């Protein structure tokens, strides 16, 4: 009994270790918030275990993971955010192990550039937050996770055509909101 528990746990833990970076990046860029991030990430992995019977062996595992993430974040996002997230057994993450921000080391840039970079990051964050959630998720998957239109369509349970139009709208919105700040940087 002990041995089987150790066995299935280490198999599962291996999957978590392989994909935790992907999941945290996805969630943080989607939500823009560190609060509740670990609970959300944990819920995604627990669902992967529970939903594994619906996983198609022919599909990429990562696509399956993205689909679980999308369902949790967007399809159920609104109602779930009101509930306490479902870590019934696990203690709430305490402050000292909250996710580390993957911010660039400010010392790596000249001071004025570092300040500009941070301002740009803040500005982009607030622009991303104005996008409808499905657009935002599609954009994050496309920009930061290099997912193809087809893979995004699978994750969103949608079509490639719909994903293209979603991304086109998202990118137009971001571009038009960012335009006032990018004027000087565009080569003619």
């Amino acid at each position, binding site marked *: 009994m002990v041995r089987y528990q150790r066995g299935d746990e280490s198999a599962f833990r291996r999957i978590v270790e392989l994909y935790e970076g992907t999941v945290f990046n996805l969630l943080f860029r989607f939500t823009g918030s560190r609060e509740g991030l670990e609970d959300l990430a944990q819920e995604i*992995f627990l669902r992967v275990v529970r939903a594994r019977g619906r996983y198609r062996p022919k599909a990429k595992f990562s696509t399956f993971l993205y689909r679980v993430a999308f369902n949790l974040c967007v399809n159920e996002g609104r109602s779930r955010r009101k509930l306490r997230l479902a870590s019934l057994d696990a203690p709430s993450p305490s402050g000292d192990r909250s996710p580390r921000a993957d911010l660039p080391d400010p010392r790596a840039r000249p001071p004025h550039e570092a300040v500009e970079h941070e301002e740009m990051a803040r500005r982009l964050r607030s622009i991303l937050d104005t996008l409808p959630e499905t657009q935002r998720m599609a954009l994050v998957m496309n920009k930061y996770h290099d997912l193809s239109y087809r893979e995004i369509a699978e994750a969103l349970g949608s079509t490639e055509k719909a994903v293209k139009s979603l991304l*086109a709208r998202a990118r137009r919105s971001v571009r038009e909101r960012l335009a006032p700040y990018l004027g000087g940087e565009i080569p003619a």
Partner: protein
Amino acid sequence: MNLSCDGVRDLLALHVEGALDPAEAESVARHLGSCAACRAEERLERATWRALDAVPGAAPPSAFAERVAEAARRSSRWRRILPLAAAASIALLAGALALRGTRAVLSDEEVIAHLDLLENWDLVSDPELAVALDAPEEDLLPLGGGSGR
């Protein structure tokens, strides 16, 4: 197809990605050839895409995987559904994985084989069924609170 400036701007992101169908691509190219304002917008689109690099990601906290595995173990559902018959093979697999250590990242195929093994008591092989992840809520919520201890 004659596109307005507004129509072109809807298509610019896909245009710079080369994702338009040939007819649309040609219409956009023709418009850009004669519209300086939309050409500026095209440059802005490329600059925006680069600017998005500034949005930071987040790294998992240390020992995250251990805590998730612990939460999975504690879930009563997890304990209830895992048949003892699968236990030995899972332990073997875990051992095989441990031998590989951390030097190679597992391929998707290996992870898949891995999940299949975990799943060999109720694998859904019908692709139609398999597509749906929208199982009943009670099936997806952790049951740790409900049944026993």
